[in-house]
């Protein structure tokens, strides 16, 4: 297994270089270093000298990918892409364009993001699986039919509707929790109840339908018929056999997103004023802060690769037939 992990880790390097290159190309297709300077220096009374000075200080006065004026390897290394990328791979994210330390920001914002994402993930998973198992259990009955209709309706509704509707009902009309905001420690609870509830409800439609499909597929297999023929109670069949065997596809979808929980939720964090990494990324895109955008895309890629690796490893835990070679 160790050899497998090492091989997958080595595979990750060219993937990360590629992701970094694509991010770089996409960003600089729509933003020039001059645009970035203007965005940071403001729109009033910005002189060409000030723009040049800003670029020189941050290394944006060099060519993007190829420095024809530099000697030897300098043609490749004395470029914006190389200089920024090398530091990235050393996990030196540097400073944002507003001069704040990116590592410090990520460290600070990770907590609020996880405080929201972990409960949504765990509670959502439990609710979706329970609901899906219920629908599968009552398959081909009116309960199943109405359950599916409800799921389709719920997944057809925009997440923004859940957020705005939830804020309106629960916070504005019923005054049960604050509409938005965040606080550390135990005070965080009152701010997290609503976004977690909305996050869970918003995910029921799609999640439950997907799990229901998985369960129904398993329930049609021979071992289920055998279990029933043995006289096992339907609940035992469902929870001990069907659920366990449906874990492989569930894990495929679930384990891969676990590392990405760090990245936070872009929309939910903005609407609920949660100072997490999701809103950090949105702010950076709006502010054309390449340093932050690049760092967040890089971290997202690393976490996604880790998620895929964990998924593969988890197969061996839930299915003894799987061997990683």
């Amino acid at each position, binding site marked *: 297994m160790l050899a497998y992990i090492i091989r997958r880790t080595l595979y990750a390097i060219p993937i990360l270089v590629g992701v970094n290159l694509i991010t770089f190309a996409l960003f600089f297709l*729509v*933003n*020039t270093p001059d*645009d970035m300077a*203007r*965005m940071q*220096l*403001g*729109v*009033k*009374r*910005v*002189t*060409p*000298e*000030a723009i040049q*000075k*800003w670029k020189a200080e941050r290394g944006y006065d060099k060519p993007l990918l190829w420095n024809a004026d530099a000697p030897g390897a300098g043609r490749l290394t004395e470029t914006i892409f190389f200089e920024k990328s090398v530091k990235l791979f050393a996990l030196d994210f540097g400073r944002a364009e*507003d*001069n*704040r*330390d990116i*590592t*410090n*920001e990520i460290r*600070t914002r990770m907590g609020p993001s996880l405080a929201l994402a972990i409960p949504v993930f765990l509670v959502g998973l439990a609710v979706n699986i329970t609901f899906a198992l*219920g629908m599968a*259990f*009552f398959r081909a*009955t009116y*309960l199943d039919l109405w359950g599916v209709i409800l799921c389709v309706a719920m997944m057809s509704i925009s997440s923004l509707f859940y957020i705005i509707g939830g*804020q*309106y009902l*629960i*916070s*504005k009309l*019923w*005054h*049960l*929790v*604050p*509409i*938005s*905001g*965040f*606080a550390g420690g135990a*005070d965080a609870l*009152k*701010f997290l109840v609503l976004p977690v509830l909305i996050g869970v409800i918003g995910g029921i439609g799609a999640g439950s339908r997907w799990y229901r499909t998985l369960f129904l597929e398993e329930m049609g297999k021979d071992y289920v018929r055998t279990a029933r023929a043995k006289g096992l*109670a*339907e*609940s035992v069949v469902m929870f001990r056999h069907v659920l366990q065997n449906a874990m492989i596809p569930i894990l495929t979808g679930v384990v891969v997103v676990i590392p990405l929980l760090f990245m936070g939720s872009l929309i939910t964090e*903005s*609407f*609920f*004023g949660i*100072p997490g990494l999701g*809103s950090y990324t949105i*702010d950076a895109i709006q*502010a054309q802060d390449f340093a932050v955008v690049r760092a967040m895309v890089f971290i997202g890629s690393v976490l996604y690769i880790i998620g895929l690796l964990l998924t593969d490893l988890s197969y061996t835990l839930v299915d003894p037939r799987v061997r990683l070679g």
Partner: protein
Amino acid sequence: MRALLVLAVLAGGCSGVWNDPYPASDRGKNILYSAFTERPKHLDPVQSYTEDEARFTQQVYEPPLQYHYLKRPYELVPLTALEVPKAVPARGGGVVYTIRIRPGIHYQPHPAFVPENLSLARERIARLDSPYALPLGTRELLADDYIYEIKRLASPRLHSPIFGLMAEKIVGLGELAERLRKFDTRKQDWLDLRKHRLEGVEKVDDYTYRVQLKAPYPQFVYWLAMPFFAPVPWEAERFFFQPGMAEKNFTLDWWPVGTGAYMLTENDPNAKMELVRNPNFRGEPYPSAGEAEDGPAGLLQDAGRTMPFVERVVFSREKEAIPYWNKFLQGYYDSSAIPSDTFDQAVRVAVGGEVALTPEMQDKGIRLRTSVDTTILYLGVNWLDATVGGDGERARKLRHALAIAMDWEEFISIFLNGRGRVAHDPLAPGIFGQRTGRAAINPLTHVWENGRAERRSIEQARQLLAEAGYPNGRDAKTGEPLVLYLDTVGRGPGDKPRFDWWRRQFAKIAVQLEIRDTDWNRFQEKIRKGSQQLYILGWNADYPDPENFLFLLHGAQSRAATQGENSSNYVNAEFDRLFERMKTMANTPERQAIIDRMVALYRRDAPWLGGFHPVSYGLTHAWMMNGKPNNMARNNLKYLRVDVERRAALRREWNQPVVWPALLILALLILSAVPAIRSYRRRERMAAKPA
């Protein structure tokens, strides 16, 4: 079920508030609650230049002058200075301002004023959660601190947006920048600006300094009311330069150090900024005079009382308008603007244009305050464009026709809910030089009828278009339809109605309009290159002087030629000559006459096809006193007072939790599970079906 209902009644009857976003320990305290949408980028007074930042910096930093809080037109008054300085001719040419500051002013408590804190170990810094966790000290404000800040304008390590402008004005500032650039080769060392002389700025004594300008520049005193000229103690720069500080985001750019009424003690631009009353603040009396209506409006109740009135100001980050608005309605913010989506919920506009709050707002005791911004948004013409630009008669008539066709009154009504005032000249209301009444209207686009300005008829526009050589919107020579291009920055699908409206305005005179919707960067690029034809842009005044608006049309400021602020690239020799005279004059009848002539030239040439001045609508709760919009200054927090008890009572009244609907939903969910449970049990007991 009965138990649930009992629980609901009990919970509903509780007098506590569940949705309070603030800590319980803050209840009943003298705190002002506000919000910010955009995170500030810079809080260093040498770099900060936006309103989002000024709301923090101007509470902390004190330049020598400030604007009178109540009087209009805006009037400069001393802040830390003893008087508003006057320009005196200098011996070697130019003018000198002598600024005398009040003795006995002290800085806020800050670790930079404790000598031991200037040589901290990196490990100790790494353990700090806030700079204020260190021992704090203070010292008296000196003239040296003002001089230090002026030198910082030229620092190669900082980006002051006004350096270019000030280098042209202050004797020796440009040369200092050049010397510092050559000297500053070791970035790991602190750049001690005290060791570098600035020729045009001289210390007279501990409380007096002189600034020498190369030439008369009457607007300089306005700059003395901005944070760019606020004092910065060298110790603060030295303190934050220590290794390990920047990694913790402890920089002067994020942790201001000043003498103002408040000090920034919590700085999390992602979530919350908190200002606390500066215990060393000397106190300042609330103004005793203002406009005629200020007394009846209750704005002079605190006359002569020592400010500030509020102990703490908590700013929470609200990125979205809906939560911001709802929290205001719940009483968790003391004031708010009116988001466009909720305008009808807050304000009713009568047929005659009178504005009033809705009954819902009135029931809450909310007050509405409106003010015309010292801002202009305009539809500009590129003077370099072959079709619409230049001073030829044909293009001029075409511009006049378009200026009549652009119905800005309708635009304001449809898209701004009436929150705007049509611009008849380049000046903003309240600025010296702008006429009022009949004399204020642009006679080429409006006529004075029934005591008000009425837009000229579309027939007159068509006539002008025909005289320009485009009868019925077609070129008289070629027969080709006249197609014009408008460059603008779109914000998404929501802009479509606006684009359609613009097209309709041009279509009224059979001119086709193509809208080039682009992003801000591309738009700026086009403007810089002078490749646009028509464009939309705005200007927010730095200071209340006509020079700050009329320079937008000064030939020497041409964007395409000099990267200046004249985005229309308008050139008129007479206008430029008058501008050069007007800009250094005091506000005299002679200056008014010159401005009148410049405005007449502007109207005749029409480099802008009109525009409007936004009107701000601000709402405040009944418990917040002394709020008056001030477009020039943002150091308003010290004037505000909060009736804490009234706020607490109303918050309790407005936010009683309503539990029964949630319990009802819960009960319904439980009930809905009953058939499933029954069905499950029936299945479990069911015998196997015979084959």
